[in-house]
């Protein structure tokens, strides 16, 4: 309808070139890294989670669960470290969701959205930073794991397990992004994530073998994607059958993404 009298203006170029996208994402990554420098405590969870969880589970449950695994505490170390590895991606997903929520609540997102940048840049920057945080946490997990007796005998398998955890985490991220956009504050996002993830995590093979659980719960753990993920990570890092759990995990990742990514993107786009 309205005549575009300014189309000869060189600034009128509507499309954002890939290089500009990368530049924007880079600038936003710098922003997120500066947050960490400004507030080093925000790294505490990444640093402390693997230390606390590994020590807690190994020394509290290690002896008794190890027995049922046909060994002792050492057998449980080989069991729990890949399980905790599986949780790394979930923590990342939760971090992206809460971080996004904070941006929306402080009005910073309005500023970004009024700038000529792709909205994806804000998301990619946040994911990049959370991925780095996840890798740091993973490295700490492995160091603590080795200190309490974990044997790394398959390096490619280890890296594959890290990758699988990240893939599954990226799928979960769409759920947390939706929560991050919809919910009122970061605490609610965290609490909601906790409420959903906690039963899923404990109702899986992440922390303990499922054979001794009551029948109904065992059935649940068998369809729980977190069991597939934990078992796949175990297979990759320690040895044993991998293929079935690996495919199950990938299938769940694709499924969750297919359903939740459009929802998250829609919510993000229409958020006023």
């Amino acid at each position: 309808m309205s005549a575009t009298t300014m189309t000869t203006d060189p600034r009128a170029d509507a499309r954002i070139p890939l290089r500009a996208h990368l530049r924007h994402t880079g600038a936003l990554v710098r922003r997120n890294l500066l947050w960490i420098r400004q507030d080093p405590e925000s790294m505490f969870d990444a640093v402390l989670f693997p230390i606390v969880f590994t020590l807690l589970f190994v020394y509290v449950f290690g002896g008794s669960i190890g027995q049922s695994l046909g060994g002792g505490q050492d057998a449980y170390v080989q069991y729990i470290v890949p399980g905790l590895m599986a949780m790394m991606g979930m923590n990342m997903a939760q971090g992206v969701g809460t971080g996004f929520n904070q941006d929306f609540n402080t009005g910073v997102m309005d500023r970004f959205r009024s700038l000529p940048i792709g909205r994806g840049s804000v998301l990619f920057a946040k994911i990049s930073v959370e991925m780095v945080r996840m890798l740091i946490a993973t490295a700490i997990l492995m160091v603590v794991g080795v200190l309490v007796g974990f044997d790394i005998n398959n390096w490619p398998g280890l890296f594959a397990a890290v990758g699988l955890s990240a893939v599954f985490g990226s799928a979960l991220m769409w759920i947390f992004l939706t929560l991050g956009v919809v919910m009122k504050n970061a605490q609610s996002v965290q609490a909601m994530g906790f409420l959903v993830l906690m039963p899923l995590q404990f109702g899986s093979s992440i922390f303990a073998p499922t054979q001794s659980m009551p029948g109904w719960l065992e059935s649940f753990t068998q369809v729980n994607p977190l069991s597939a993920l934990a078992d796949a990570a175990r297979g990759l890092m320690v040895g044993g059958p991998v293929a079935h759990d690996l495919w199950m995990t990938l299938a769940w990742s694709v499924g969750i993404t297919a359903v939740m990514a459009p929802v998250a993107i829609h919510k993000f786009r229409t958020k006023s």
Partner: protein
Amino acid sequence: MSADIGTLSLMTRNDKDPGVAAGAVSVRGLVKHYGDTKALDGVDLDVRQGTVMGVLGPNGAGKTTLVRILSTLLTPTAGHATVAGYDVIRQPRQLRRVIGLTGQYASVDEKLPGWENLYLIGRLLDLPRKEARARADELLERFSLTDAARRPAATYSGGMRRRLDLAASMIGRPSVLFLDEPTTGLDPRTRNEVWDEVKRLVGDGVTVLLTTQYMEEAEQLAGELTVVDRGKVIASGGIEELKAKVGGRTLRVRPADPLQLRPLAAALDTLGITGLATTTVDTERGAVLVPVLSDEQLTAVVGAVTARGITLSSISTELPSLDEVFLSLTGHRASAPQDVVPAETHEEVVAV
């Protein structure tokens, strides 16, 4: 629906072809619905290049919705709008290059130092690193924030944050600046600071669309005014024009001796000056308030006081409040949106 509007001669022209005579901002028949709520109900508005347009209205009048649509944060339900010649729906990216936005709530990253906030936005606006650095330094200097450049914005005072927000809006040298209630929640001194900055920006030739709840702010900054209520424009025109229309000023007369308050009020009452409201007595602050419509009336008040031999400690004129503006324009007070919506919905049903 348009009965109350029809009596006003100051409406913007509806017959203009959109886009042809487009000023810096051109809005035609803009509508935004949230379910049953009509945040905007057919708004027309023009802002000429290099001028300041004040959009005056109470909470819930639709001011923020208007700004959010013009800055591409919201899509309208109907109608269209252009900013600097770019269509808000079809050319959002080009539009974003030429606007600056300072929201009602300071939209700076509180965790980042002031300098980093500005540098980040410079980079997002595709300035080369060196230029982004220079621009950040320059704007911090200009907005008197150089000393606080390295401190996180969270440690800034309210006024400093607003100034940083303004600086952030200016990085891309916008040709149109949107200020959504730029001084809401600020103390009077800080408010003056922000006003001074806005005046300087206007001096540089930036076109400004400013929303406000304060007549005083509109008078300080805007040349033209659009008064909105319940998502509709109820009056628009030059600020002097509107001021005259809503009945000018209120004279605040304070006797030196509080005991003289009643005699003074009685004396002024007999003058028979009835502006918009009647003469009232503000016992709390020991003053008599007289609405005056003309300089003659003002002189008559002074004459009456002198004739009675009453000593005054102060005499001052005040602009009409938003409430008074609304009272004279619409016959009702500026009311909260909750009170308004059901009535309006009902009206709509009847009209259909």
